[in-house]
């Protein structure tokens, strides 16, 4: 019996990319996710979403006081226009307008040094 000729083993030199393919995949994946997270955080801060996020540190105490139900009633953009429908609208509108103006928002001057009790004693008014 004659032995079959064995195929010659070629000592193939792997390139750098072939050798580190898996590592490169992981690094690139991490880099892409870092970029995506950075973009998300940037948008979160710039768009004003951060100001509406009451789950941020220091704001949890008020997060349960958010009015979850929107008190403003929808008015249909479709339908006839006559005295009755306009009167219906004005009734809804006046009710909501009163609600919007019910709270005198951001009034007062709570950041005044007098209020925060570090005003200049020499200029303090009686």
């Amino acid at each position: 019996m004659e032995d079959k000729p064995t195929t010659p083993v070629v000592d193939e030199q792997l390139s750098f990319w072939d050798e580190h393919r898996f590592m490169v995949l992981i690094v690139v994946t991490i880099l892409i996710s870092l970029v995506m997270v950075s973009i998300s955080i940037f948008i979160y801060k710039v768009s004003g979403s951060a100001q509406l996020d009451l789950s941020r540190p220091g704001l949890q105490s008020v997060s349960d006081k958010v009015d979850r139900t929107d008190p403003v009633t929808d008015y249909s953009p479709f339908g006839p226009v006559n005295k009755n429908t306009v009167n219906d609208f004005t009734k809804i509108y006046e009710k909501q307008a009163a609600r919007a103006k019910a709270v005198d928002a951001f009034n007062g001057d709570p950041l005044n040094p007098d209020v925060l009790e570090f005003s200049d004693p020499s200029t303090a008014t009686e």
Partner: protein
Amino acid sequence: MKKRARFALYAIAAVVILSASGLKNSYATDLTAEQADLVKANCLSIKGSLNQLHASDALLRVNRGQIYESMGTKLMASFNSRLSNNSLDNKGLVAVTNSYQSALSTFRSDFQTYEQQLSTAIKIDCTKDPSTFHASLELARTNRATVRQDIIRMNRYIDDYRSAVNDFMLNFERVTGKNS
């Protein structure tokens, strides 16, 4: 010609310098020694007050903002669309709505500026740097006053829209007859 250009250049430079110095004065950071001591001594309680204000204003922004947003989208825009769908003249109402939306947009951005400034002030160590803390607080104070003005402006547009609806109704009755 050259003299004129030079004169204009000097005038612009003078205006820029004057306004910059005015700006500097309006946010004067000159705390007296007594005030600086008070800030250092009361730092903890001041920070507590600021944190409370930060939280209550954030809540106000969410709750009030929701109502103001809905007024614009659910009522004003809807009513304008209804008039438009019935081929009625809604120019006056649309003009007020646009002004309202613009005021609302300004409110959003002004509140953002104010909130960021207040957060910056809160982060400053007032025991170590009372002057910077005071300057930052003054800026936040100015920003808060701007937010207050935005609210007043939006309330005014809400009233204007109501008046515009009245005007529309008068015109509508005049054109179509009282029986419509």
